[in-house]
C-alpha cells in the first residue's frame, strides 16, 4: 500500500535535528546497507527505510484496528499534535509520557537507559524503533485521539513489505532484550517489550510462534510475579506426558536405551529388582518384561518398585499401574511382584523402606528418567538421593536427563539456553509430520510449555526444571563413587531403528558420547542416557551381546 506524500508544512517537521539519535542509528546498523529512504530524503528526512518500514507497518495495523480511514492521508481529526517524526525516540517518549501517566518519569534518562539496554545486545540486534513500537502499541490499546493524529503525521511514509524472516530475527532479539531487561530489573522496559513480543510472534507461523508465545508468557509471569500454580496435579502432568510419549521419540528412546542397559546387567541373574524413581504410567516396563521373558535360559523373577508423587484425589495410581503390569506378566509368563511407594520427593526415601534383598539373591537396578534434576532445587537433595542409591547396592543405575544447561546462576544465560533448547524441541515436533490428532501435538506442546514456564518464571524451590548437561551429571556421579557403564552397540542399534521408524527419522540423530547415548535433532543433542555402577564392583555386562 503506497501512500501519497503529503506536503508537510513547516509545523514541527524540521529535518533531522536529533542528530544524536541518528548517530546512534548509524552506529547500530553498520550492516544494514546505509540507504536512506530516498523518498523521505527528498523531504529532508534522513531515516533508514528499513526502520521506517517497521514503524509504518505497525501503524498500518494500528489504523486497521482502530478503523480510522487514512487512505488519503488526511487526518479527520482536528486535534493535531505535531512531533518531529524523524526523531522517533523523542516522539515515542512523548507518547509514553502521555499514556503511561504519572508513573513514568518523563526524563530523558528513561530514553537513554532503554537505548543503552538495547545496544548492549551484541550484533545488529538493537533498534530504537523496537523500543518505540511498544509505545505505539500502548497508544493503540488506549485509542486516544492524539495517537491517530500522530499516526496521521506518519501516514505519508511509504510502506515497505516486511520480510517475515526479518521479523523472526527481531522476535528473537526482542525476547533477548526482554530477558536482559528482567535480568537488570528494568521492569518497565521488560513490560513494554513483552507486549511487543506478542505482536511479533503473531506474524510468525509454526514452531517459532509457539515457542515465542510460551516464552513471552513465562516472561510476563516473571515480570508481574504471577507465578504458575504449583504443578500439583500429577495426573494432569502424566496425561500430558503420555501425549508427549506418543508424538515424539524422546521418551521411547529413553526407555529403550535404559532397558537395554538394565537387560545386559541382569544377564545372569535369577531374581531381579528394578526400582523406578518415577513410575508414572509404567510405559517403560512392558518392553523390558518382554525381553526378559524371551531371554535364553528363561525369565528371571521380576520385582518392580515404583515411586510416585501423592495423588490429590487419593487414588492409588501406583497400584493401578502395578496391576496392569501384573496382568501383562501373567500373560507372558514371568513371575512378578510389585510395590508402590508414594513420596513427595525422592529425598524423602530411605533405602530400608524398599526391602532390598541381598545382592547374591537379587540383582538391583535403579532407573531415573528425568527424575534427578528436580532434586537440585533443594540443597542437599541430590546428595541424599545419591547416597540412598549407593545404599541400595545396585548393579546398574540408568539415568536419562535433558542435555541442556538450565541451571546456571545467571537468569539471562538460563533464558538463552532455554530458548535454543526448546526452539529445537518444538522444531522437531513440527518436523515430525504428526498429522493425526492434532490434540496430541497440542498437548505435547503444552507439556513442554509448562517446563518453559518453570525454567523462566520460577525461582528457588519452585524452579524444579533444573536441567544440567551430561558432563555435569558425569562429574556428579563420579565424585559420588560411581563409574560409567558403556551402553554398547545393541542399545545404539535399537535406538537408531526406533528413530528410523518415525516419519521424520532423518532429523533425529543418535550419538554416542563416551559410552552414553544422546538423542538430538539435527546437530543439537537434546536428551542423554547414561548408565552407572558402583565403582570397584565388576561390571560383567559388556559380554552379553546374545541377549537381545
Amino acid at each position, binding site marked *: 500500500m503506497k501512500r501519497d506524500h503529503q506536503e508537510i508544512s513547516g509545523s514541527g517537521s524540521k529535518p533531522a535535528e536529533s542528530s544524536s539519535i541518528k548517530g546512534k542509528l548509524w552506529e547500530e546498523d553498520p550492516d544494514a546497507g546505509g540507504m536512506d529512504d530516498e523518498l523521505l530524503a527528498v523531504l529532508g528526512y534522513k531515516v533508514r527505510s528499513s526502520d521506517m518500514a517497521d514503524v509504518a507497518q505497525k501503524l498500518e495495523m494500528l489504523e486497521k484496528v482502530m478503523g480510522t480511514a487514512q487512505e488519503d492521508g488526511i487526518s479527520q481529526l482536528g486535534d493535531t499534535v505535531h512531533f518531529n517524526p524523524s526523531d522517533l525516540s523523542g516522539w515515542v517518549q512523548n507518547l509514553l509520557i502521555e499514556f503511561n501517566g504519572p508513573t513514568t518519569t518523563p526524563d530523558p534518562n528513561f530514553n537513554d537507559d532503554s537505548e543503552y539496554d538495547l545496544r548492549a545486545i551484541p550484533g545488529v540486534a538493537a533498534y530504537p524503533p523496537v523500543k518505540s513500537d511498544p509505545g505505539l502499541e500502548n497508544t493503540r490499546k488506549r485509542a486516544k485521539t492524539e495517537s491517530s493524529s500522530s499516526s496521521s503525521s506518519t501516514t505519508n511514509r511509504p510502506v515497505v513489505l516486511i520480510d517475515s524472516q526479518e521479523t523472526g530475527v527481531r522476535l528473537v532479539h526482542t525476547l533477548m532484550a526482554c530477558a536482559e531487561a528482567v535480568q537488570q530489573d528494568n521492569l518497565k522496559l521488560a513490560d513494554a517489550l513483552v507486549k511487543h513480543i506478542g505482536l511479533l510472534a503473531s506474524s510468525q507461523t509454526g514452531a517459532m510462534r509457539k515457542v515465542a508465545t510460551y516464552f513471552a508468557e513465562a516472561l510476563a509471569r516473571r515480570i508481574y510475579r504471577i507465578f504458575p500454580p504449583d504443578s500439583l496435579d500429577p495426573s494432569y502432568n502424566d496425561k500430558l506426558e503420555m501425549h508427549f510419549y506418543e508424538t515424539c521419540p524422546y521418551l521411547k528412546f529413553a526407555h529403550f536405551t535404559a532397558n537395554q542397559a538394565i537387560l545386559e546387567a541382569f544377564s545372569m541373574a535369577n531374581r531381579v529388582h528394578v526400582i523406578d524413581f518415577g513410575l508414572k504410567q509404567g510405559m517403560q516396563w512392558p518392553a523390558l518384561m518382554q525381553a526378559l521373558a524371551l531371554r535364553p535360559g528363561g525369565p528371571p523373577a521380576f520385582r518392580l518398585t515404583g515411586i510416585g508423587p501423592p495423588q490429590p484425589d487419593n487414588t492409588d495410581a501406583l497400584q493401578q499401574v502395578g496391576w496392569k503390569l501384573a496382568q*501383562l506378566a501373567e500373560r*507372558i509368563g514371568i513371575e512378578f511382584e510389585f510395590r508402590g511407594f508414594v513420596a513427595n520427593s525422592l529425598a524423602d526415601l530411605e533405602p530400608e523402606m524398599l526391602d532390598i534383598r541381598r545382592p547374591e539373591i537379587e540383582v538391583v537396578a535403579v532407573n531415573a528418567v528425568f527424575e534427578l534434576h528436580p532434586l537440585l532445587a533443594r540443597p542437599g537433595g541430590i546428595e541424599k538421593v545419591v547416597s540412598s542409591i549407593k545404599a541400595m547396592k545396585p548393579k546398574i543405575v540408568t539415568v536419562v536427563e535433558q542435555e541442556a544447561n538450565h541451571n546456571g546462576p545467571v537468569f539471562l544465560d538460563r533464558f538463552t539456553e532455554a530458548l535454543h533448547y526448546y526452539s529445537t524441541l518444538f522444531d522437531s515436533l513440527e518436523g515430525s509430520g*504428526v498429522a493425526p490428532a492434532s490434540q496430541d501435538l497440542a498437548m505435547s506442546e503444552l507439556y513442554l510449555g509448562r517446563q518453559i514456564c518453570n525454567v523462566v518464571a520460577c525461582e528457588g524451590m519452585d524452579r524444579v526444571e533444573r536441567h544440567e548437561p551430561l558432563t555435569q551429571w558425569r562429574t556428579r556421579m563420579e565424585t559420588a563413587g560411581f563409574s560409567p557403564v558403556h551402553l554398547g552397540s545393541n542399545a545404539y542399534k535399537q535406538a537408531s531403528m526406533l528413530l528410523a521408524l518415525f516419519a521424520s527419522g532423518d532429523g533425529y540423530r543418535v550419538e554416542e558420547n563416551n559410552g552414553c547415548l544422546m538423542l538430538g535433532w539435527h546437530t543439537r543433542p537434546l536428551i542423554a542416557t547414561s548408565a552407572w555402577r558402583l565403582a570397584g564392583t565388576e561390571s560383567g555386562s559388556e559380554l552379553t551381546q546374545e541377549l537381545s
Partner: protein
Amino acid sequence: MVQNHHCEGHETVGENKGKRPKFFINDHVDILIEILKRLDGRSLCVAASVCHLWCTIARNDSLWENLCFRHVSPPPSSVRSVVLALGGYKRLYTGYVRPVRSRLGRMRKASWARDEVQLSLSLFCVDYYERLGGSNSSRRLVGESSPLSLMFLCKPVNV
C-alpha cells in the same frame, strides 16, 4: 483351463462345459497351505478374501509366524507362547513387523533382520499393555490398528 484361483462352483463358460477340471486346489489343502506359506503379507491378505476355505487357512497363525521370521533364524520356542499371549502372529505382523520392515528398508542391513523382529516384539508388547485397562480416555482403537502411542507406525511414509 485349470482354474487355480477361482471359487468353486462356477463352471467354465465356453467350450469345456460339464467337464470338471482334473485338479482342483481346494481338494488338496496341504498343498494349498504350502503355497500360501510362501506368500508375502499383502498376497496373504488378498488370498484370505478368495473363499471360505482360503480365509480359514489364511487366518491360521502359523502362516503369519512364517512371515514374521522368514528372514531370520528360527526363534526360540518361548517366543511363540509370548506372541500368542500378546495377540498372535497376524497382529504382530500386520501391526509391527511389516511397518518396521518397510520403514527400515532403506537402512537395512542383513544382520539387522533379527533386531527388527526384536524391536517389533517390544513394540508389540507395549501395544498389549496399552490395550489393557484403557486408562486414558483418549484412547481409541480403530479396528486392528495400534493404540495411539504407536500410531507413528501407521502413518504413511513418503519414501
